[in-house]
């Protein structure tokens, strides 16, 4: 079936920044492998600083021109070539990931050092190269508009995440990494199956061309189903969440922070990109209720399981399962036929939830890592004495928890409030109840931990001292989540730049 040609989009000014954002970390990675581990931290620091500047510049350009940045790679237009495109949400996620990756690298600075005069440790080289690979893969996921290119980004992200999970060694973490890998490969095979059906039906993999021609025929619906289930497995939405808690809890603190804050968002971003920008007309409200139902189950079951955990890092990981659930309400709350204000409110709420969760969870995982370092364990029953020994750590944990619960003022509050308003305005009272119940349950597990932290120390317990710098990094990330609560509670125009009408 011949396709009618779409208007050709050319590269915009500054479009080359997108190539830089993807290629530069990859080049740094090659340099890392070539030069060995001695200079690893310097290379990573330089690469992540450049990344911050690039991401900020992309966001400013998108905000300034109110139009997406576009780069046509090699001058070959789709369907032959691949176009990189950064709209509002891409720019937002690029900035968020650059900030969190830089914070995680600063946090891990001492843990993965290569002291002079000692034999090089392979582990630190693995950690730093995984961090760079994640940077590149995330930027590719956020900006690519070619379904197969996105698949490659997804795989790069998984392959960068697996070593971080297994880096501590020990049967438990290796088992967690293996389980993660099996789920992830299953997910990517289903995604690939969907891709081949789409290519068979439309003869192209460029998202804009598919969006222009998409019709709800059997092949497209089957493809959308396969792609969705594949991405759900990678995003760890209930009932595919089983791999996430041991994997995220077993990684070193900085690794857990990046995995929970960014890596699961990579596949979620792709899922939203597909349903909102690639097959927008397929988004039947009744079908999307299924995704919202899975999200609701994730919120309730994830929170209740978090309540029952006895280890702090597992509790934080189960809280990720619950918080991911909220993001899936967006699929039913942004209907094709509702008023702009309500749809815009739900859309903004979902992205605020993605960003607020990223910062709060990164802060919380770093705080949990410091707790484990101070106490030598992370059993929730024996957290006593922490608030006297390390008040900053407890404060970081508490502020992150504030955002997860959705108490004002915090980014989590704004996000959940806007989702709640949209749910009530559209008559989805069941989802409104789940949103509120999830907040109450989150309150239960956060306050449960905090009360233990404030308790008197058990007799004869020696508490280690941790550096103030790392405490401030955890606190800083938590404060970003808190300060997001000062945003006005209305749709944010930046998030709709460059989206299809």
């Amino acid at each position, binding site marked *: 079936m011949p396709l009618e040609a779409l208007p050709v989009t050319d590269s915009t000014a500054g479009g080359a920044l997108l190539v830089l954002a993807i290629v530069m970390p990859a080049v740094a990675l090659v340099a890392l492998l070539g030069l060995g581990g001695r200079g690893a931290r310097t290379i990573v620091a330089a690469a992540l600083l450049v990344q911050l500047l690039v991401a900020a510049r992309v966001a400013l350009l998108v905000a300034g021109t109110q139009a997406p940045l576009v780069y046509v790679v090699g001058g070959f237009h789709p369907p032959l070539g691949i176009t990189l495109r950064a709209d509002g949400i891409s720019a937002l996620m690029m900035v968020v990931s650059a900030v969190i990756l830089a914070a995680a690298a600063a946090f891990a600075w001492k843990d993965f050092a290569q002291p002079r005069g000692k034999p090089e440790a392979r582990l630190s080289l693995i950690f730093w190269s995984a961090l760079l690979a994640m940077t590149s893969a995330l930027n590719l996921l956020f900006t690519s508009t070619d379904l197969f290119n996105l698949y490659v980004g997804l795989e790069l992200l*998984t*392959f960068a995440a697996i070593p971080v999970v297994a880096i501590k060694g020990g049967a438990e973490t*290796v*088992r967690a990494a*293996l389980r993660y*890998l099996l789920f992830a490969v299953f997910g990517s095979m289903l995604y690939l199956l969907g891709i*081949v059906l789409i*290519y068979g039906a439309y003869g192209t*993999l460029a998202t804009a061309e598919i969006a222009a021609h998409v019709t709800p025929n059997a092949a497209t619906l089957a493809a959308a189903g396969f792609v969705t289930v594949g991405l759900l497995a990678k995003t760890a939405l209930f009932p595919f969440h089983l791999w996430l808690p041991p994997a995220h809890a077993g990684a070193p603190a900085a690794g857990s922070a990046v995995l929970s804050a960014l890596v699961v968002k990579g596949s979620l971003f792709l899922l939203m990109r597909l349903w909102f920008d690639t097959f927008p007309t397929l988004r039947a409200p009744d079908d999307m209720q299924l995704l919202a139902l899975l999200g609701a189950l994730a919120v309730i079951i994830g929170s209740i399981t978090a309540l029952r955990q*006895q280890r702090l890092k597992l509790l934080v990981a189960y809280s990720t399962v619950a918080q991911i659930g909220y993001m899936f309400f967006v699929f039913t709350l942004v209907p094709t036929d509702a008023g702009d204000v309500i749809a815009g409110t739900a859309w903004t709420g979902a992205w605020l939830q993605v960003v607020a969760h990223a910062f709060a969870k990164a802060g919380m995982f770093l705080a949990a890592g410091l707790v484990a370092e101070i106490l030598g364990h992370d059993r929730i029953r024996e957290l006593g004495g922490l608030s006297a020994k390390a008040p900053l750590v407890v404060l970081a944990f508490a502020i992150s928890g504030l955002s997860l619960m959705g108490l004002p003022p915090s980014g989590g509050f704004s996000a959940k409030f806007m989702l709640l308003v949209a749910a009530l305005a559209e008559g989805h009272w069941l989802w409104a109840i789940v949103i509120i119940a999830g907040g109450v349950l989150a309150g239960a597990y956060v306050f449960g931990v905090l009360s233990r932290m404030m308790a008197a120390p058990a007799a004869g317990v020696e508490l280690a001292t941790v550096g103030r710098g790392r405490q401030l990094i955890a606190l800083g990330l938590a404060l970003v989540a808190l300060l997001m609560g000062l945003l006005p509670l209305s749709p944010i125009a930046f998030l709709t730049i460059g989206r299809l009408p």
Partner: protein
Amino acid sequence: MTAALLFWLAGSGLIGLAVYGLIVNPHPLCKLLALNLLGSGVFLLFGVIARRGAAAGLGGDPVPQALVITGIVVAFSATAIAVGLLLRLHGEAGVASIDEEDDAP
């Protein structure tokens, strides 16, 4: 029955077998083999799509053939990582099973 249809059915059959194996077989090595079978089925479908798209007098549409090479590389890397992890797990725990739950308090 055309050749394309035959391969289409074979690919779908492989995918079905693989998903079945993935679900019922608890051993991670079996799961890994099932995933490879799943990959083979999907790659076969790529071949069918390439053949079907050969309308312009070419032997086949080159795009799916290019994609499938990348897909095979990715599947191979994933298998290599999984086998590496499996060996490590066997070395550390003595058994290569992902079923044992965390037994620490």
